[in-house]
C-alpha cells in the first residue's frame, strides 16, 4: 500500500503521519488524531456531520482527502473552546436546546462558526442559508437557528 507523509495541525497540535492518498480527512481526524467529535453521517457529503474548518474555511471532511489537508490547520468541534470556557456557539446550542440526539451537532456548530466569522450579524434568512449544508433529523431546525442567533448576539455581532 502506497503511503504519503503528511503534517496536519488539528486543534493546535501537529500530527505527522503516513497515510494512503485516498484516506478521507474525516478518518484522519477520528483515527490518527483520535478526535471522535467529527462524525460520519451519510457517505454522500450531504449531511454535514463531518464539517470542520480547514485554514478557517469550513469543509466537509468526508469529501476532503487527508493529503489535501497537508500543511493545513484544522479546527474540529473539540478545538472550538479555549479549553476553559465553552465557545459561545456551544453555550448557545446548549441553552437554546438546539440539539436532541446530538449527532449532527458538532458539524452544525462548525458550519455555524464559519458563518459567523464571515457574517457576524446574520439575519435569520442568512443563518438558514448558511446552514443549508447540514441536516438534522431530530429537531426540526427551529432551535438551531435560535442558537446561532443567540451566539451571534453574544459574540457582539
Amino acid at each position, binding site marked *: *500500500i502506497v503511503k504519503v507523509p503528511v503534517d496536519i495541525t488539528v486543534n493546535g497540535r501537529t500530527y505527522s503521519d503516513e497515510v494512503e492518498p485516498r*484516506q478521507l480527512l474525516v*478518518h484522519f481526524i477520528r*483515527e490518527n488524531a*483520535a*478526535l*471522535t*467529535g*467529527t*462524525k*460520519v*453521517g*451519510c*457517505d*454522500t457529503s*450531504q*449531511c454535514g*456531520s463531518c464539517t470542520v474548518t480547514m485554514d478557517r474555511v469550513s469543509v466537509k471532511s468526508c469529501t476532503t482527502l487527508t493529503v489535501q489537508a497537508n500543511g493545513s490547520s484544522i479546527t*474540529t*468541534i*473539540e478545538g*472550538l*473552546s479555549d479549553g476553559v470556557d*465553552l465557545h459561545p*456557539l*456551544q*453555550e448557545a*446550542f*446548549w*441553552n*437554546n*436546546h438546539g*440539539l*436532541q*440526539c*446530538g*449527532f*449532527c*451537532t*458538532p458539524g452544525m*456548530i462548525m458550519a455555524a462558526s464559519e458563518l459567523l466569522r464571515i457574517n457576524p450579524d446574520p*439575519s*435569520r*434568512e442568512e443563518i*438558514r442559508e448558511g446552514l*443549508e*449544508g447540514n*441536516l*438534522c*433529523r*431530530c*429537531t*426540526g*431546525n*427551529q*432551535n438551531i*437557528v435560535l442558537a446561532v442567533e443567540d451566539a451571534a448576539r453574544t459574540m457582539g455581532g
Partner: protein
Amino acid sequence: MIFFPSDVFVVMAAVGATLSIATSSSTQSVSLWDFLTLDMSKSVIVSMEIPFASADTVFRSYKIMPRSENAHAYVNAAFVMQFNSSTSTVTGEPTLVFGGIQAHDIQATQTAAMLEGANLLQKDTLTTALAKLEGEIVPVTTPVSSSAKYLKSLAISLFYKYYLAVIYDHVDPRVQSAAVPFQRPLSTGTQTYGTKPSEYPVTEPMTKLTALLQTSGEAEYTTDVPPLPHECAAAFVLSPQANCKITGVDFSTAEGMPGFIKGLTAADIPGDNNFMTMGTAEPVLVSDVCEYAGQAVAIVVAETQRQADEIALAVKVSYESQGKPLLTIADAIAAGSYFEDPGRQPIEVGDAKAAIAKSARTVEGTISCDSQYHFHMETQTSLVIPEAEGYMVYSSTQWTQRTQAAVAAVLGINNSSVDVSVRRVGGAYGGKITRSHWIAAACGLAAHATGRPVRMHLDIDTNMKMIGKRIPYYATFTIGCTEDGILNGIEATVYNNCGWCNNDNALGMALDHIDNAYYVPNWLVTPKACKTNIAANTATRSPGTCPGIFIMEGMIDQVARTLGLDPDTVRRANLYKKDQVTPIDIPLTYCNISTLWDDLYSSAEVESRKAAAAKFNEENRWRKRGLSVVPVRFWMEWGWAVPYTVHINIYAADGTVAICHGGVEVGQGINTKVAQVAAKTLGIPLDTISVKPSNTLIGPNDITTGGSITSELCCLGTLRACNELNERISPVRAANPKATWKELVAACNDQGVNLSVENFVEEKTDYQYSYNAYGVGCTEVEIDVLTGELQILRVDILYDCGDSINPDIDVGQVEGAFTMGLGYWLTEKLIFDQDSGQLLTHNTWVYH
C-alpha cells in the same frame, strides 16, 4: 442509472459560453455542446468565456427539484432571447436549453426558429410555440426519475413562465404569478407553553443534561468508543437479488485484498442463525433461501472499516432466481401473498353493512401511504469485545435486553455471559428496536471467529439496502353518512406491507387508531398483512398509529369531497365527546378534543385565513392556497410496555446520586427528565445526579424504549424509587432536622440504612391503553400549479400534554416530529428495481 442534470451546463450553454481546453501542446476553444463529445484525455479546462449580451437580452434560468437544497433537478432550463420591447418582437433566434429531459441537455431548436421575429403579444404566438415545444420535448425516464408526463409538463411550464417574464408588463395580473419564480420565504416559529415553578425542576424548561458534552464533541456514541488493541472491523455482503436461492459465496478475490482477515457465512455460526429470539426467526446470514435484495449473505472481517467495506463489494454471490419478486401491496394482493396472522382480529362494532345501507349517502374510496427511511444520523453500529468470561457488547440499540439475547443465541452461549451497554444513540425513531440486534449479532459472530474486538458501522448505502423501514399502508373503504356528513358506519380493509417477515407488524395498532378523534357507531375493519420480497419492515415513529389516523383523515376528506362539504365542518361534527366508547371498547374518560379544535380555530384565525386563501385563489390562476385542520387522538399504550426498571444509588461518601434506568437515551431527553424528577423528589441539586449508560445488569428483562411511553414510565419509576429512599431516610431526618443532605446521607449509612433502591415499574391498567393525548394542527400551503412546487406558509399546533416535565424537550420533540412528518408525507419514498428487487433510492442523492 441516475441523470445528474448539471445546473452549470444548462446556464452556460444557454448563454453561449465557450471553454478553453488545453493539452501540453495546444489550446482550443470549444462550445459546451461540442464539449459533451470531446475526448478529454490528457486535457484540462483552462477557462470559460461568457460572451457579453446586448441590452435587450432577457435571460432566465429555472430549476425544479425535489427539495430546496442539495438536490439535482427534475428539470432545469435556461432561456435567452433578444426582445424588442417597443415592438414586442423577438430579434434573432432565442436559445432554449433544457436539462433532465434526456441524458444530456437538449435545445428546442424548432421552437426557437419559430419564435424568430415573432410578436409575443399575439396570442397565437404563445399557443403555436407551446405546441411546437410539446413535440420537441421527448423525455427519457429512468426507474428513479419522475414520469415522462411530469417531466414534459415541467419543461413546457418553465418555457411558459419565461414567456410571461419576457412580456411581464403586458401580462394579466391573474397569471402574473407564473412569471415570478416560486420563492421560499424565511421560516420562523414561536413556542408557547405553561410551567409550574412550585414544581421546579419538574416542568422547568431546561436543556439536556449532556448538552455540554454533545456541543463540545465529547459525547460518546457507539462508534466513538476508543479503539481497542487488536480491534478489527466488519462489513456485510448483501444479496443482489430478491426471492432467490443462494448457490455460492466466492471470497477468492476478497482474500487477496489488503486488510482481509476472514470471510464468514451461515456455516460459521456456532449457535442459532437467528437474531430475533422471539417471533419468526430472522437469519443473520442467509445461505439458501434469500427473501430480498439487500439481505445479508456473508460478513467480511478486515483490519479497518474502509477495507471491510471495499472487500465486501468484491465478494461474489451466486444465486438462482425463484421468480419475479413481489415488492408492493398491489403485487401482494394480485398474488394473494399474506401473512396468516394479520396481527389482530377484525374490528367489528354494531352492524356496519346495515348502517351503510340505511344511510342517506354512501362514500367510497381508497387511500395509501408509503414507506420512509428512519434516517437516524448515526447509522446502525456495534462493537463486540471478547472477554474472558463472555462478551462485552456496545450497541446503538433501543432494546439492550434483546440485543443481549440475540448475541447469546447466535453464539450459543448463556445470556448471562453477554453484557450490553449503550450510553446514547444518535437517533433511532424505532429503527433500533429490533434491527440493531442484527448488527450486534454479526459483530458477535466475527468476534467469536477472530478472537478480536470487532466494530461495525454501516455506511448509509448498506443501512438503506439491508434494513427495513416504515411499513406502507393501503386501505379501501365504504362509508355511510347523513347529508351533513355525520358518519353512521364504516367498512374498510386495511393492507400493509410488512416485507418478507412480520415480526414488527403494527397493523393491530393501525386498526386500534383508525377512528382517530371521531365517533362512528358502526365499524367493520379487516386487516391484511402483505408478504413481499423486501426487507422486513420495522417500527418507525408512530408505527401503525400514524397510518391509521391518516386513513381516517383520508376517509373524512373523501366524505367532504363527495358531499361538497367543508372538511372542517365534517371533522368538527364527528369529534368524540367525553365518555363515548371507541371501536376497541375503551371509554374516553378524558376527552377535550372539541375544545382544542375550537381554541386552535380561533387562535390560528382559521376562518379569516380561509377566506383570504379563497380570494387569493380567485385572483391567481397559477398559484393556489389551501388550509387544513386535523385533530389527533393518540392512545398511550402502557399495556405492552411494562416493565421498566429504575435503580438509584446514593453514594454515602458525598451524597451524590447515580441513576440507571431501563430506557435508552435516543435524543428524547429521557435522562434529563429522570434527573429532574429525582432532583425534585429528593430535594437535591440537579448537578449532583448522574444518569449512567443503560445496560443489561439493571433491568435485565425490561421492554424496549419506544411507544412514546418510556420517558414517563421511567420518571414514574424514579419518583417511586425516590419516595422509597425518602421513607428510609425519614427517621434519620426526623432525628437530625438541621442536617445537610450530605450529613443526612452519612448518618444513614452509619446506621445501616440501605441507600440503594430499585423500582420495577409494572403498571397494571384496566385496558391495554391507559390514556389519550390530544392535539390539533392547522397547516396552510401554497402550490405552484405549473410545477407542483409547494410552500408551507404557516403551521399552528395545539397540543395538550398535561404538565410537561420539560417543555424545552417536549416542544423540541413536537417540532422534530412534525418535520419528520413533512418528509414522510411530502418527499420521502422508496423506489425498487422491478426485476432484481434492489432498492434504487439508497443514498441521499436519490432519497429525498
